[in-house]
């Protein structure tokens, strides 16, 4: 039975059930199951899945870009709570999206199981007997031959076998029945089962994997323990014991920027040199990572995501003591690498000092735009920072971002006109702070790299799933199942041969195939008549 017929048959059963007055709970369940696993429901669920995926491309997603999402929420104070309730900031984890795909999966299982059974039974079945009246089929040819009936039948058998048909000859009836293309349904089942495999892969990855981010200044190091991460997203069943015990040092970083043209200022190439140990005590190995080339250690991957500048800044306090010295990570704000950052000097006396401001790799200035960076490379580096004094709030124990100042206990230093006092420095220079606070020196710059460390154990399973799905799909779409019958009869001393066929899939070129078969059967050039 054709699958769509199976489906229609189910549908008509369902319709009959619907008209029955009282359904027992069992019948009701059966009815619901049939509804859910019908082809029409699958179609509608697929549509809902497509539609449901749309909002995720319009509304920023927390899991994709938390900062953008937070900004969006701030900019839309009225919509944000409603959107939040609807799960629009994490569409792909939302209840309703999950409901759609879980229903689809149930429908899928409900679809695969009975079809596998039908397929299994059909596999060993013989091609069905020739219909009584072959000329009623749409593709039908008829010709005469000089062979006797038996020879004609044998020839039909041989020709069909050579074309890889499964063939049954029934001598009483004087007919041959043949069928091919069994693999199509297999491909279809393989495809649909593989979809489940992909989801299993995703689930495993989501549960046991993790993804973390860390910023490392060149010359600095990282060892793979929880405390070293700047941010860390574990899966539901992740345990810190799963962290591979490697460590590395970022030796250097290279970047080339496009110098001219429309895309001037784009990074053309960037890469970082690492020295690493797969485990403590193992020999040091060296590697370079770049955008398409991560480092892989123990199934854990280290990706180079982006980079930035870490100016070396020294703060001397009122007593001339060094209160802070070292590279400070500035986060890029735009494509020219104008970057923002803060420096905190809690040990400065007489008062704690905080600096907040910008770094320009290629400092430029116009009256209209104020200071800006003309190019992303460090051609003319400069910093411009405001100065804050008082209590940095570091001893309260509350966690504080290293990229911002908690200004509740701080006062901004003012210049004479009441405007903020600015520390404006090009590289290698020092500026004395007023009121005997000390001085700030811009000693030099390092670059830093932003790395992502991740492990997603289900990936291979998912990948195997999609690959199998593709294989199944190709079988399912390109294999053309068809049945062919040949009947031979004697009429007035002549042998008449009829050939007819039935295409079991859409889109096949059955007429052409029947023509080829007929050609092979009639090598004695008798005229062929037929209908199509």
């Amino acid at each position, binding site marked *: 039975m054709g*699958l*769509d017929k199976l*489906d229609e048959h189910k549908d008509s059963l369902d319709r009959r059930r619907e008209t029955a007055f009282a359904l027992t709970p069992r019948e009701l369940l059966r009815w619901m199951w049939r509804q859910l696993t019908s*082809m*029409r429901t*699958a*179609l509608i669920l*697929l*549509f809902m*899945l*497509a539609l449901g*995926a*749309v909002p*995720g*491309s319009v509304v*920023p997603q927390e*899991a*994709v*870009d938390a900062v*953008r999402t937070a900004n969006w929420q701030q900019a839309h104070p009225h919509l944000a709570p409603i959107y939040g309730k609807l799960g629009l900031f994490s569409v*792909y984890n939302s209840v309703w999206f999950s409901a759609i795909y879980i229903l689809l999966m149930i429908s899928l299982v409900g679809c695969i199981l009975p079809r596998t059974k039908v397929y299994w039974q059909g596999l060993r079945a013989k091609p069905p007997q020739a219909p009584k009246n072959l000329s009623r089929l749409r593709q039908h040819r008829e010709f005469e031959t000089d062979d006797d009936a038996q020879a004609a039948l044998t020839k039909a058998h041989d020709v069909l076998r050579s074309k890889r048909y499964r063939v049954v000859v029934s001598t009483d009836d004087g007919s041959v029945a043949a069928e091919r293309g069994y693999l199509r349904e297999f491909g279809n089942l393989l495809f649909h089962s593989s979809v489940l495999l992909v989801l299993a892969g995703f689930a495993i990855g989501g549960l046991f994997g993790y*993804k973390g981010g860390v910023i490392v200044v060149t010359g600095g190091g990282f060892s793979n323990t929880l405390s070293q991460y700047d941010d860390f997203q574990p899966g539901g069943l992740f345990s810190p014991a799963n962290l591979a015990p490697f460590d590395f040092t970022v030796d250097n970083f290279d970047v080339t920027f*496009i110098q001219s*043209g*429309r*895309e001037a*200022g*784009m*990074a*053309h*190439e960037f890469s970082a040199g690492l020295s690493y140990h797969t485990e403590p005590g193992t020999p040091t190995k060296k590697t370079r990572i*770049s*955008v*398409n*080339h991560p480092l892989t250690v123990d199934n854990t*991957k280290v*990706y180079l*995501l*982006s*980079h930035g500048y870490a100016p070396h800044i020294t703060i001397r306090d009122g007593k001339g003591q060094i209160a802070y010295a070292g590279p400070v990570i500035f986060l890029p704000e*735009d*494509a020219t690498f104008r970057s923002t950052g803060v420096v905190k000097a809690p040990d400065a006396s007489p008062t704690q000092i905080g600096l907040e401001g910008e770094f320009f790799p290629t400092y430029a200035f116009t009256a209209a735009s104020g200071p800006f960076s003309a190019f*992303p490379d460090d051609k003319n580096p400069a910093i411009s920072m405001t100065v804050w004094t008082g209590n940095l709030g570091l001893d309260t124990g509350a966690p504080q971002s290293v990229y911002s100042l908690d200004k509740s206990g701080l006062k901004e230093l003012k210049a004479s006109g009441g405007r903020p006092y600015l520390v404006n420095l090009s590289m290698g220079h020092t500026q004395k702070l007023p009121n005997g606070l000390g001085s700030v020196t811009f000693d030099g710059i390092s670059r830093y790299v932003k790395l*992502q460390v991740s492990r*997603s154990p289900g*990936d291979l399973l998912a*990948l195997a799933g*999609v690959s199998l*799905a*593709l294989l199944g*799909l*190709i079988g399912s*779409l*390109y294999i053309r199942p068809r049945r062919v019958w040949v009947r031979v009869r004697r009429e007035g001393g002549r042998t008449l041969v009829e050939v007819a066929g039935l295409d079991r899939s*859409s*889109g096949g*070129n059955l*007429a*052409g195939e029947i023509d080829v078969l007929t050609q092979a059967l009639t090598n004695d050039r008798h005229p062929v008549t037929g209908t*199509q």
Partner: protein
Amino acid sequence: MSHDHFELLSNQALAACAVTYFLALLAHLYQWAIARSLPITASVPATATATAGGTDTIVRTDQAPGEQLDEKSDRMAMFSRIGVTLTVLGACFHFVAVVSRGLAADPVRVPWGNMYEFTMTGTLVVVVAYLALYRRYSLDWLSPVVTGFVIITLMVDVLFLYTPVVPLRDALQSYWLIIHVVAAILATGMFTIGGMSSALYLIKERWLAKGKTSTGYLARLPDLAALDRMAYRTQAFAFPVWTFAALIAGPIWAQHAWGRYWGWDPKEIWAFITWVVYAAYLHSRATAGWKGRNAAVIALIGLATLWFNFIGINFFFGSGSMHSYAAPVLTVLLH
């Protein structure tokens, strides 16, 4: 030849190619204008190949009665040949334009670095696919649609999307880019041709529903079943290719480039949506009550999502997508 020379050559070849396609379009339009005054006689029983392509309703010119009609159908056939020959010539220019675009970059690279190049290559795939299938499926009826579509698309490409040659960004420098993009362009081209069939199906269906059966272009289109079959064949070919491009090669490349297979980035979301819609299309053809008309509508929705993903996403969500070729920002760097 220097890289600059190649860039110039590419531009000139594309101009020559557009002019040639335009002439081809004129030839086909003239061909179908002649057809208006040519009555459709009883359909010739299709031969085996005709059923494959579905030319059941097209008149065999040698059977049209009357000398005048004979002459007209001869002229029709001639302009059809002229049109196709010009299209082949145009495709040669087109090919030169694409290849020299790649040679113009320093270092030499694949010509798929931005939307301008992607569109240029995509349209070439449409033309080549049409030419390759022309004989086998008797695609005469598709000629004006293909040439018209390609000219308009190339015009948009040159006017709005033109970008001078620049090297590829880091994230785009990977052989997975080549695999991923080749598959995506191939699928896009085939889906587009399938969409043309589906659109013609819907147009012809409406036209038949109004009870019209006279002369002209629509009358000479293959019958509905053949249009449906043509649409199915091309889209069923494109679907696995798209599956490979969007769900296998794409994620592998993303994994290399950004450390995750799948990140629900707008471009990925819409690639997924396209995939699901075409899966729905394949289902609909096997579902009672959804065959034919509804299936054609779903196919066109699929095509719309595909093109929206390609053009719309870059403009509407430009900076939000890591894949934004069009946005001149360093998205990749800033993430």
